[in-house]
């Protein structure tokens, strides 16, 4: 961001804290952008002629006579087709060595969609991963996070989802991403030949944390441009939203706000919701789907960040290591896609809902049998069969390295039912049983 002629310049900074400074200025608008000593800043409080600015990179070395230039506009981004295939920082400046973007300049974090103009999401997103497509089907316009511990391979799974999802455009928002992960994504997209349908806004761990606050808005404003004006199916990947929330708490702390649960600001729910709710199915066919990552601390989902996220998003996906088959699987018990009801059995084969529920029930029976085994009780024949079924189900369907069509997933499930169980034990509606039952060879 550069200063231009005729902009008001102030040089009397009255007050400097770790993240903010206060300057006497007039005619300044709320949320306006400014440059303080060459650093991007935003107006967060106005009291008479005292204007408090939040300085994104921090206030180290800011002198009381530093130059403050108000830019007369809220944070904006220039949008056009040129955004495709490019990588930017949190302010929307290129970091890939390419030229500046020319295009329409629009405010980020703009207004919400009128709820009565939304359409009910109904288009399935196939990912090839059975733990998702079969058990937790994704739908365009949905918002869903991975709840994962930091050691789990969520970035790899998310990249697979993105590349297979047949989206017109993938927007990657990286918050507090390690440089290694950033390069991983870049190389992966490059190798897949998908770079021309990727736009990325990246805040790495090298960058100041407060800058992250701009990343989701940059991504989602760009997404809205392509989804509304170009009627595209846009997939937005946000990783990691926990670090975004941490940045919120840093700011609220420095603004002397009273923290609520887990030192998070009282507005955490609204702050997260205003981003996640940008996911929408638009009337003219465009859509924004958000797949996010919320890293957990030791699997604790009662912490304010995953807890508030759970109330906002339409389900959540859990990864888990299944030691019986030495693979990472999508946990069928705790994962949930709230919108799957809109497509399963409607856009997919009619046996989908029953097969899904039945397989999970049998998997749960296996978990019960396992507990019995661990407690030293005797196993019945049925218990042993469920355990064998569970291993194969886990390996052939739940593992994240699966990439098959949904019909194949259903056929695989029927094969497993036939191999290990009788029709009575499976307990699916009779007409479906007649059509699809595969007796073991």
């Amino acid at each position: 961001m550069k200063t231009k002629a005729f902009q008001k310049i102030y040089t009397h900074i009255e007050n400097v804290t770790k993240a903010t400074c206060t300057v006497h200025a007039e005619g300044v608008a709320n949320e306006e952008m400014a440059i303080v000593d060459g650093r991007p800043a935003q107006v967060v409080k106005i009291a008479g002629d005292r204007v408090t600015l939040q300085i994104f990179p921090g206030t180290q070395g800011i002198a009381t006579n530093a130059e403050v230039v108000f830019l007369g506009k809220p944070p904006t981004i220039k949008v056009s087709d040129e955004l495709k295939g490019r990588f930017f920082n949190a302010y929307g400046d290129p970091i890939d060595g390419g030229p500046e973007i020319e295009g329409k300049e629009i405010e980020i974090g703009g207004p919400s969609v009128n709820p009565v103009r939304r359409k009910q999401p109904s288009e399935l997103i196939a990912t090839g991963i059975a733990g998702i497509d079969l058990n937790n089907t994704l739908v365009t316009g949905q918002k869903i996070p991975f709840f994962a511990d930091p050691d789990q391979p969520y970035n790899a799974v998310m990249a697979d989802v993105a590349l297979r999802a047949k989206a017109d455009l993938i927007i990657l928002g990286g918050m507090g991403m390690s440089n290694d992960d950033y390069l991983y994504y870049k190389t992966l997209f490059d190798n897949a030949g998908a770079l021309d349908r990727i736009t990325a806004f990246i805040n790495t761990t090298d960058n100041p944390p407060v800058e992250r606050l701009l990343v989701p808005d940059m991504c989602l404003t760009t997404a809205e441009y392509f989804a509304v004006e170009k009627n595209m199916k846009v997939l937005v990947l946000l990783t990691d939203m926990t670090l975004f929330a941490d940045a919120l708490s840093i700011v609220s702390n420095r603004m002397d706000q009273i923290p609520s649960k887990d030192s998070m600001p009282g507005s955490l729910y609204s702050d997260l919701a205003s981003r996640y709710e940008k996911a929408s199915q638009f009337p003219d066919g465009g859509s924004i789907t958000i797949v996010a990552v919320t890293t957990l601390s030791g699997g604790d989902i009662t912490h304010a960040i995953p807890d508030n996220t759970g109330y906002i998003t339409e389900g959540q996906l859990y990864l888990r290591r299944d030691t019986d088959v030495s693979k990472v699987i999508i946990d069928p018990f705790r994962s949930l896609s709230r919108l799957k009801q809109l497509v399963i059995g409607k856009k997919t084969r009619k046996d989908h809902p029953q097969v899904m529920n039945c397989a999970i029930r049998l998997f749960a029976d296996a978990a019960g049998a396992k507990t019995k085994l661990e407690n030293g009780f005797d196993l019945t024949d049925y218990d042993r069969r469920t355990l064998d079924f569970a291993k194969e189900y886990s390996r052939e369907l739940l593992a994240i390295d699966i990439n098959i069509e949904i019909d194949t997933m259903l056929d695989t499930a029927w094969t497993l039912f036939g191999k290990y169980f009788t029709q009575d034990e499976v307990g699916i509606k009779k007409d479906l049983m007649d059509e699809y039952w595969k007796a073991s060879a």
Partner: protein
Amino acid sequence: MSTKGKVTGIIANLVTIEVDGPVAQNEICHIDLKGIKLMAEVIKISGKNAYVQVFESTRGLYVGCTAEFTGHMLEVTLGPGMLSKNYDGLQSDLDAMDGVFLKRGDYTQALDQSKKWGFTPLAKVGDTVSAAAWLGTVKEGWIDHRIMVPFRLEGNYTVKSIVGAGDYTVTETVAVLADANGNEHNVSMSMKWPVKVEVKGYKNKPRPFKIMETGIRTIDTFNPIAEGGTGFIPGPFGCGKTVLQHAISKNAEADLIIVVACGERANEVVEIFTEFPALDDPRTGRKLIERTIIICNTSNMPVAAREASVYTGMTIAEYYRMMGLKVLLLADSTSRWAQALREMSNRMEELPGPDAFPMDLPAVVANFYSRAGFVYLNNGETGSITFIGTVSPAGGNLKEPVTESTKKAARCFFALSQNRADSKRYPAVDPIDSYSKYLEYDEVIEYLGKVIEPEWVNKVLTLKDILLRGTEARGQINILGDDSVPLDYHILYNKAEVIDFVILQQDAFDKTDCSTPLDRQQHVVNTVLDICNAKFVFDGFEEIGIYFKRLINHLRQMNYQTFKSDKFNELERQLKDLLAERVSETQAQAAQAS
């Protein structure tokens, strides 16, 4: 002359305005931002400074913007035409707005100003009337919408003139009333009322004594909510709060349903928009949307308007209650409303209470719940507002301030349990933790004894006892092992499972099972109670589990059949044979006799 002011300070949506005249607490003002009028409400006054919460984004607002005060509090417009509408939290008609995105300062009319309604007078010239008396009636959809004396008029009035039957718009004068001093007041079919003030003007509000039928067995049978009663549904995310509320809104025996989507997901409201126009109201055969009003302030819409939305819903409910209608008000979720209060209290730098919520949260919640109720109108008719709110406890912890405050205010508690949700036992209402205070009301016990059967409440309490003892038995079995406990423990546990699977669990997505009328609930309760009272004979614990699985499956098949249909009767006959396998004849008869 109205008071004017200038903006002197801005922190997020809390704006300080220096005023040039008198202002009132909760007064509404409009701040002019380059021609866009932003609505705001006064929440604190200090000297010449009024602190206002703006109902919109304050981006771009600057010191020196002018503000104009309206002289009244936040009001809604009441009149025919609200049915089937989709409003935002400030009662703007969302369908009347242009474009895909909401625009700041776009406040649309709540009522269609040009539509003509067929008015039939009920009052005559010379009648003495007071606030909320019925002057006339119009057909709003299928509802007899009463045109009332404006609620703000105090004392008695004489009807000076009233128009004849004919078509009028909501703004045309339909009657002229004269007060004791002879001053005349023109009355149209619409009126305004401040949302934070309860609509009085009814004769009295007795303790509720009737049951509001919801068609949901775990509610109607186990923890019934009274017509005019209050209840709340707390539960962690993923437990089915919203599915349960939607099920209630689809099946409840109410004339009118007002759904307040307060700070929740927009797609859930889209579901109502999309599905209700196609779904039939099981009682009237009309489409569900014809008895529904939606107040929609989803989580991404301005936070301050979220607080307003629940009051807007309540005030509209009170308006229809004065017409003698049975209104059901649902708010999802009241926690978001409390969070909106917290955000504001925080910006005002008030000393925080628990979890940074404002200290007066319990009082605010209690005051709101107290606006529900069953009333006798002055003309002898009755009306009611039954209110059910959901609570989204942080971290699923029911000891947090919003749940605790609500628990003190609401009379029914439908606790959703994570364990039940995990094992797919829906609705996940915990039968042991949940309660309905109405089951302790003598009036309610008497009413249930009359409309269902004598001793009904005792039967329900017996079932609750068996559930509790069954849970204890299961605990013993888990600790000691299957074969180390007496067979009676297994039988008791399985009887509790029968109650759980056959009465408590209900398939919200099945077209028959989704709603069970009271007479059918009576039937299933008696069937299950007979089983629970019967003495079964078994040789070993393995066969107990197998037998009861068959029994439960059989009873569930009955739930899926149309009541008293051939198929249902056939299954009922087979049930006798099934029971005869394990219940000795004399004991079965003994059970029947009890």
